[in-house]
């Protein structure tokens, strides 16, 4: 087994780990961060599977834009609960 095989298997294990960890997190912020890391790992896997087009799209959309949108949603949710540090003092 050469290095690239080991790297691939490690990435796949990390992917499964991320997928399980999203379910076990307590706060939404942790879940969002794990989702972003899941997308980054997935884009590396696409690259190793020789589809760079998909890798670029996954990195830009999965890790970039949707992460930002999730974070904005979290901010809005907290603003509507009016209990956190978002509220002006």
């Amino acid at each position, binding site marked *: 087994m050469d290095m690239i095989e080991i790297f691939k298997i490690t990435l796949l294990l990390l992917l499964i780990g991320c997928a399980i960890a999203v379910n076990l997190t307590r706060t939404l912020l942790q879940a969002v961060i794990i989702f972003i890391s899941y997308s980054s790992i997935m884009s590396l896997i696409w690259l190793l599977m020789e589809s760079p087009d998909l890798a670029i799209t996954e990195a830009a959309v999965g890790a970039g*834009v949707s992460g930002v949108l999730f974070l904005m949603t979290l901010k809005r949710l907290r603003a509507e609960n009016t209990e956190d540090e978002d509220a002006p003092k």
Partner: protein
Amino acid sequence: MLNNWKKWLLGDGEVLDDLPAPREIPDLSREKIKEKNRQKALEIENKAWIKRLVRAESRGFHIAYIVIAVLSCIGMIGVLLFLIGNLPNYGQENPRTLEVVTRYVEKGLEETGAVNIVSGMILDYRAFDTLGESHVLFTAFVCAMILLRQDYRNMHSPVDDFRSLIGDEYFDLSKDTILQESGALLGSWIFLFGIYVLLNGQNSPGGGFSGGAIMGTGLIIFAASFGMARVDKFFTRKLFFNLVFLSLAFYNFAKGYVFFMGANGLENHIPKGTPGALLSGGLILPLDIAVGIVVACTMFGFYSLFRRGSIGGKIEP
């Protein structure tokens, strides 16, 4: 006016009595909010069905929930693995799709003029798919706008009102030098990279969708570090809708022309160019630009909607 002046001169009565009272700013102090939340929690606790739910949870509802979740996950994994087992092996020839794949690989460069066969596929052979994708994205954006857009009619509480009106100015970032400098540096390079990916889609990995998403991310970084007011100066609502409409209309007409000519056995007069050059691939580059503009606009529009409930400029009365 003259009356007020006379009153002020004579020194009797308050001049400001006649003026309309200033709008009240809602009390957002910590104690008030905490008190409100406590009352709300008490109200919720007193409801009967919540009590029942809590009791059920203590009786092992939680454990049952986890067991059911794990079982359904395992069942889903089993179904997926069973289906994957029926697929042909990696790299093995699949007789049902072999014809199309061979055609794409062997004649793709010749027929589309694009070195990147994936671009040739999604914007030439399967251009209708990409057209539908762009429309789906725009439809999703319109739905998000229906749900999230805020104006004076759907602001239900004074707190909401206060937040959306002065929220962006209240949490002003214009004094954070580190954020702005790094945002300018990072955002401009990301935007440039997006343009490169977009324009070079027919020669290297990338294309309309990924390039547009990267450009949208650059815009988002710019807006996050400099505040929405700076972006509103050049990215107005009118520009947004004009760009998206023109891109989609151009895509429709260009691809409609090509399909019409092709279906009727006529020759279309769009030069293919030399493969590998920037201006090559016939219609692929313009279509890439159109898709990229739609994707970048909708990505930034989503961000703008989520952040303050409107696109471009202030909330309309």
